[in-house]
């Protein structure tokens, strides 16, 4: 083992790709990686509150078994021996799956999500379930039932949600990768707020079988990792059609990691002239503009781009997920409304007053709106660049709707302003760390591409990370 890999703390803060490569070279064991992650969780999670449940014994047993298989020279998958924990909404037969809620606190599903099965088939092992917004229904990470996650970079600020624990666990060195889910920004927001990399793939790119639903039409599964390369390695395992999820796409899965060549010559990056930069705080804008310079330095051309159909995107997008969520939760809203946090039942409620004709109009316009948007945007550029969260990261108190501050609702909505449009459009989008705001919280750069252009999105993100070190910085934990 190299000197750089000698300390347990160092092991836990390697990128996933570095850890997997060190395992393959025999420089480290899965047991050592798993023990390093568990030790950091024991030491630091009382303050961060990112873990809902942990099965240490099973994780250590699986790590030992992984090491024995490697020692026997068996054929191994690309994630062999890598310990992970995921947002607590991925079904694993017989294991807890709270969905961040009181209602499902004791739920143990009878079957396993396809994405968990794929990760395990690739050799990954699962340590536990991570904190999240209740039923994945807020962009801040507030959780009345399990307690709020704490931002490891900035005490008292939001972690972003709904995949709050996933962002924290990856940032804090508890997990080399964590699955999140994204219906309005729930992967990209915690990635931005916690200074990690998070990819929302194209709608239909990854199976949702065995994943807690929020919105049939807008839910996406995706990874939070430390680097774009990590994302690419994991996406190779996750992406692809699943017969158990008939909505999953049959599009071929490219070699994502092979696309990471660092060369952005000829790439056209568009800065939207509508919506995305209309309400940006100065410190966030500063980090964003510096990021554009980095992309230019790698050979990209950065140009302003006019968007089409934004009014349609925002209006129709506002209705689809809220109506579907209301439908999914109707039984519990009838029978036990008091078991939801007030801001969750409050957000669900309007969905019961929306006419079905509005909902179907919003769904039926989705194809034409995507075509119109893509023609205008991607006729001119290959990628769109925006800040992931346009405002300086607010505090938990400033966005606590249940606390009674009327302004909290507006701050709450401002957080997901730039991520929501890409869910209605179904486009792939990544958030990568690109600096810090004036109060010391991370800022994220969002890059979005055409449908199924995950390779190009990750290529640009990886190129950016070759010339910056924001993704390599680690928070100092108490």
């Amino acid at each position, binding site marked *: 083992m190299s000197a750089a890999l000698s300390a347990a703390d160092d092991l836990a803060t390697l990128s996933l790709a570095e850890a997997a490569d060190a395992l393959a070279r025999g420089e480290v064991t899965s047991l050592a990686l798993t023990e390093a992650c568990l030790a950091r969780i024991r030491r630091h999670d009382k303050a961060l509150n990112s873990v809902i449940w942990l099965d240490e014994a099973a994780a250590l047993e699986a790590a030992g078994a992984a090491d024995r298989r490697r020692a026997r020279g068996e054929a191994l998958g690309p994630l062999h021996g890598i310990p992970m924990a995921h947002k607590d909404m991925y079904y694993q037969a017989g294991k807890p799956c709270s969905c961040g809620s009181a209602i499902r606190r004791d739920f143990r599903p009878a079957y396993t999500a396809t994405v968990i099965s794929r990760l395990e088939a690739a050799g990954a092992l699962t340590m536990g379930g991570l904190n999240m917004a209740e039923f994945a229904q807020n962009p801040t990470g507030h959780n009345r039932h399990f307690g709020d996650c704490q931002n490891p970079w900035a005490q008292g600020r939001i972690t972003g949600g709904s995949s709050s624990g996933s962002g924290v666990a990856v940032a804090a060195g508890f997990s080399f990768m964590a699955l999140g889910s994204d219906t309005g920004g729930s992967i990209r927001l915690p990635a931005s707020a916690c200074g990690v990399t998070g990819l929302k793939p194209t709608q239909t790119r990854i199976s949702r079988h065995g994943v807690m639903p929020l919105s049939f*039409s807008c839910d996406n599964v995706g990874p939070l990792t430390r680097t774009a390369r990590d994302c690419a390695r994991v996406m190779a395992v996750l992406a692809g059609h699943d017969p158990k999820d008939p909505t999953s796409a049959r599009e071929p899965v490219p070699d994502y990691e092979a696309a990471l060549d660092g060369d952005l010559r000829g790439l056209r990056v568009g800065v939207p002239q509508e919506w995305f930069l209309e309400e940006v705080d100065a410190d966030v804008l500063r980090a964003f503009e510096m990021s554009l310079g980095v992309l230019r330095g790698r050979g990209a051309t950065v140009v302003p781009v006019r968007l089409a159909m934004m009014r349609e995107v925002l209006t129709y997008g506002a209705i689809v997920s809220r109506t579907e969520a209301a439908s999914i939760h109707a039984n519990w809203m009838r029978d036990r409304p008091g078991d939801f946090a*007030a801001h969750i039942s409050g957000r669900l409620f*309007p969905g019961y007053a929306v006419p079905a004709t509005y909902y179907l109009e919003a769904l039926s316009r*989705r194809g*034409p709106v995507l*075509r119109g948007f893509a023609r205008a945007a*991607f006729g001119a550029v290959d990628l769109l660049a925006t800040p992931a969260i346009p405002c300086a990261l607010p505090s938990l108190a400033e966005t606590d709707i249940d606390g009674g501050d009327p302004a909290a609702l507006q701050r709450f909505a401002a957080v997901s302003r730039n991520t929501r449009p890409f869910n209605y459009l179904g486009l792939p989008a990544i958030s990568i760390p690109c600096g810090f705001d004036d109060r010391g919280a991370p800022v994220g750069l969002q890059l979005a*591409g*055409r449908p199924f252009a995950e390779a190009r999105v990750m290529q640009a993100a990886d190129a950016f990370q070759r010339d910056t070190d924001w993704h390599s910085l680690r928070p100092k934990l108490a």
Partner: protein
Amino acid sequence: MDEIFIAEAGATARRWSGIDIPNETARQMAADLLKLIADFEALRGGLGFEDEPADFEAALRDCKEPG
């Protein structure tokens, strides 16, 4: 807040779904539907006779990168 509208929204939820307004946040959120209605009004006439939800998957494929 428009109390009449909120009462109407509450009556709709009660009649069609058997769900009561759970709290003050729900009342505020229900009031926000007025803006949504106005936004929908501004888009009236856009829905084509042949438009339907399944077209979205076709649009994803159609809008891929060329080649």
